[in-house]
C-alpha cells in the first residue's frame, strides 16, 4: 500500500500534458522587470540606482530583516528605473527595470555543467551561501530558505523531506528537474542534510510520475550518494505537496495546530529549491532563472522553460504557440492554488511555477447555490477544519469567532471550493476571514 496523508484531500485530474517536454532555455528578454518583493516577508531594499551597469548575478536588492531574501539581476545591462510596476494582479509593487545589453555574467559564478559533488563547508557557511544567493521556496510559497534551515535552539531535526510531489494539476516543472537534473538534485540533498546535521532524507514523489521514481532509484542504487537518502512513492492525492500533508504522508506525524514542521522533527524543501541550493553552494549561482511550466489544453506547445526572472509572462505565452482565441483565464501557478492574472505583462518571479491558460467554459465559476449542509467540504479539508462554517462566519463579518475555529490553520489549498456541489466561493471568504483573524491576533499581541 502506498503512503498518503490521513485527513481530507481530493482527486483532481492531473492533466500533466507538458510532462514529456524537455526543459528549454528561454531567450533573455530585451528588458527585465525584477520585483523587489518576490518572497514572503519584507521586500528587499534596492541596492542600485538608475544608470547603473549590472551583470547577471549582481545583487540589486538586499534582504531587509530576518524573513527576507536577496534579489539578483537576471540579466546584464543598464538599470533604467526603480519604480512601482504592476504585478499580475495589477497592483503596483516596487521593481527594478533593466535594459538588456548582451549577456555578461558575474565572474564569480561557475556556469559550467560539470557536477561538483564534494562539499566540505560548515553548516553555517552553507546557510550563509544560500542566504546570499537569495534562495526561497520555489514550490510557490517563496519562503526564504535560510530561515527554514536555521533551526531554533531546543529543536532537533530528524529528517529532511524533499518535496517532489507536484500535486498541482498541469504543472511539470519539478518533474522535469527530477528527470534532467537528478544528480545535481541529490548533491543538493546532501548539502541540505549537512546544513541540518541529519542522516535521513526522504524524497516524496506521487505515483503519477513513475519515471522520476525509477530514475532517482537507479542513481541511488549505484551507491554514489548518501545511504540515508531514499525515494518514497506516494499515492496521488491533492494537496499532498502541502508541507504538513507531506510530513503526515511520509512520517505519519501530524504537525500540531499553529505549529511548524520542526515541531515534529522535519524540514521540508521543494525539488526546485534543492536544485537552487546546489547551484548556490557549489556554483555560486544565485537565483536568476527558474523552470516555468507553460501549459493549457488549447496551447500549441505546452512547454517547460528555463526563464530568466523578470521576463514578461506574455513573452512565454507567445513562445509556446501564442494565446489561443478562447482563453478565459490565464493563471499564475496551478489550477488549484494559482491566481488568475489581470495583467499578463507582469514579470516571472521566483514564485512563478507555471502559467496555465484555460478555456472560458472550464475556467468560469458556476452559479452559486444555497449550502445544502452536505459537509463534503468538511470531508475534503486536509486540515480538519469546517470550511462551510468559517466561510459563513466570515461572510457575516463575525470575525471574532474565527480564531476558535482554527481559521489560521487553513493552507488555502482550495479543496473545499473544488468539492462543493453548490459552487460556493468558500475559499474566497475563508481567505478574507483568515486575514481578519491575523489582524485580531496581531492587535492583541501589540497590546
Amino acid at each position, binding site marked *: 500500500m502506498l503512503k498518503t496523508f490521513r485527513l481530507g484531500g481530493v482527486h483532481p485530474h492531473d492533466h500533466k500534458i507538458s510532462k514529456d517536454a524537455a526543459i528549454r532555455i528561454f531567450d533573455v528578454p530585451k528588458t527585465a522587470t525584477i520585483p523587489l518583493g518576490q518572497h514572503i516577508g519584507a521586500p528587499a531594499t534596492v541596492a542600485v540606482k538608475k544608470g547603473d551597469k549590472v551583470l547577471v548575478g549582481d545583487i540589486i536588492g538586499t534582504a531587509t530583516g530576518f524573513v527576507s531574501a536577496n534579489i539578483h539581476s537576471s540579466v546584464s545591462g543598464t538599470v533604467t528605473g526603480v519604480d512601482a510596476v*504592476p504585478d*499580475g*494582479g*495589477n*497592483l*503596483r509593487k516596487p521593481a527594478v527595470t533593466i535594459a538588456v545589453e548582451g549577456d555578461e555574467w558575474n565572474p564569480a559564478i561557475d556556469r559550467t555543467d560539470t557536477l561538483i559533488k564534494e562539499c566540505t563547508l560548515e553548516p553555517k557557511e552553507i546557510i550563509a551561501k544560500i542566504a546570499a544567493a537569495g534562495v526561497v521556496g520555489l514550490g510557490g510559497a517563496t519562503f526564504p530558505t535560510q530561515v527554514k534551515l536555521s533551526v531554533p535552539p531546543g529543536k532537533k531535526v530528524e529528517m529532511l523531506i524533499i518535496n517532489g510531489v507536484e500535486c498541482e494539476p498541469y504543472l511539470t516543472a519539478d518533474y522535469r528537474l527530477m528527470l534532467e537534473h537528478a544528480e545535481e538534485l541529490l548533491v543538493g540533498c546532501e548539502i541540505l542534510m549537512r546544513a541540518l546535521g541529519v542522516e535521513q532524507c526522504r524524497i516524496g514523489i506521487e505515483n503519477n510520475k513513475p519515471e522520476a521514481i525509477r530514475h532517482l532509484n537507479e542513481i541511488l542504487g549505484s551507491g554514489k550518494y548518501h545511504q540515508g537518502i531514499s525515494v518514497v512513492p506516494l499515492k496521488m492525492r491533492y494537496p499532498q505537496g502541502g508541507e504538513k500533508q507531506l510530513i503526515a504522508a511520509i512520517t505519519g506525524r501530524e504537525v500540531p495546530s499553529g505549529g511548524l514542521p520542526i515541531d515534529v522533527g522535519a524540514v521540508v524543501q521543494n525539488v526546485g529549491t534543492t536544485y537552487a541550493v546546489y547551484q548556490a553552494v557549489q556554483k555560486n549561482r544565485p537565483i536568476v532563472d527558474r523552470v516555468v511550466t507553460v501549459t493549457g489544453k488549447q496551447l500549441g506547445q505546452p512547454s517547460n522553460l528555463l526563464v530568466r526572472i523578470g521576463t514578461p509572462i506574455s513573452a512565454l505565452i507567445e513562445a509556446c504557440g501564442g494565446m489561443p482565441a478562447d*482563453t*478565459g*483565464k*490565464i493563471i499564475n501557478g496551478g489550477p488549484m492554488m494559482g*491566481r*488568475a*492574472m*489581470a495583467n*499578463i505583462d507582469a514579470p516571472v518571479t521566483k514564485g512563478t511555477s507555471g502559467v496555465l491558460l484555460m478555456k*472560458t467554459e472550464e*475556467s*468560469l*465559476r458556476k452559479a452559486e447555490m444555497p449550502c445544502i449542509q452536505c459537509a463534503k467540504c468538511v470531508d475534503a479539508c486536509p486540515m480538519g477544519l469546517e470550511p462551510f462554517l468559517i466561510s459563513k462566519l466570515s*461572510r457575516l463579518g463575525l470575525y471574532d469567532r474565527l480564531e476558535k475555529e482554527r481559521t489560521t490553520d487553513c493552507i488555502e489549498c482550495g479543496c473545499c471550493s473544488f468539492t462543493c456541489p453548490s459552487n460556493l*466561493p468558500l475559499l*474566497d*471568504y475563508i*481567505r*478574507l476571514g483568515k*486575514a481578519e483573524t491575523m489582524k485580531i491576533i496581531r492587535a492583541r499581541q501589540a497590546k
Partner: protein
Amino acid sequence: MNETLIYTIAILVGLGLIAAVVLYFVAQKFKVYEDPRIDETEARLPGANCGGCGFPGCRGMAEALVKNDDISALYCPVGGAPTMKAVAEYLGKAVAEKEPQVAVVRCGGTLCNRARTNTFDGARSCAVEAALYGGETGCTFGCLGNGDCTRVCNFDAIHMNPETGLPEVDEEKCTACGACVKACPKNIIELRKKGPKGRRVYVNCVNKDKGAVTRKACSVGCIGCGKCVKTCPFEAITLENNLAYIDPAKCRLCRKCVAVCPTGAIVEVNFPPRPAEKPAPKPAEAAQPVAKTAAVTENAPAQETKTAEEGGEQHA
C-alpha cells in the same frame, strides 16, 4: 380522588410560596443598582443600535453619556444635534455642536468613464476582491462595485446604481453613522460636512497613481496636476501622492477649482445651475439638472472617454 387533587394543589402552592420567599431574599441580596438615568437617556437616543457612535448599541452610548462628566467627545451621528441637545438637557451637561455630515463616495469611475480590462469571477464582495488583486479596471484605487457598503447600511441610505456601477448615497436617509466608511476596503467613502442646503465641493477620486497612469485608467480621475491648489483662494486644497484633497473646514464653496479641473475630478453637488454666460469647461455637467438626493453626480460623459478595450478582455 378528591384527596389527590387537594394534595397536588397544596404541594404546588407550598412550593410556590417557598420559591417566592427564597427569590425575594436572593433578589435583595444580589440587587444591582442601575442608574435610572441610563434608561431615560437611552429612550432619548434613536435606538438604531448602529454603532456609529463607537459604542456597541445605544445602551452602551447611554451608559457612557451618564457616566462621563464631559460628554463633548460623544456624538450620536444618527440623531444628530437635536438628539444630543435633548440628552444634554436631560443630564444637565454641556454638549458641543457638530455640523451634520453625510457619506460621500469619492469615485467617478462609472462604467463609461473607466474601461473594464478584465472580469472578476470570485465572490461578489469588495473585501474579497480587494485582497486578491487590483480590480476590474486599470484603476486600482477606485470603487470595485460589489456593494459591501450597501450591505452594511442600517438605514437603507446607500444603493448601487446599476447604470454607473457605483454606490449612491440618499442624503435624506444617510445618518453619517460611518458603517459604509468602515466597510469599504478601498477607503473611498468619506464623511463630509453636509454644507449649506447640501452644497458641497469635493475631489471625486482617490487615485494616487501618477497622472499618466490615472488618465489611462479613467477619464475623470485626479491626475495631481495641482491647478486647483493654485486656484483656491482659501488654501483649502492640498496635494499629496498625486491626489488633491479639499478640506471641508476651509472650503468656502467658491467652485473655482471645479472650473479649472482638467479632468472633471472635482465635483459640485446641489448647486443651482450656473449662468450660461461664460463657456463652461464642462458644458454637459453644468447643464445637467442637479439631482436632489444623489451625492455622486454623474460626471459628464467626458469627450476623451476611452471605450476601447485595451489588451482584450481577460477574466480574472
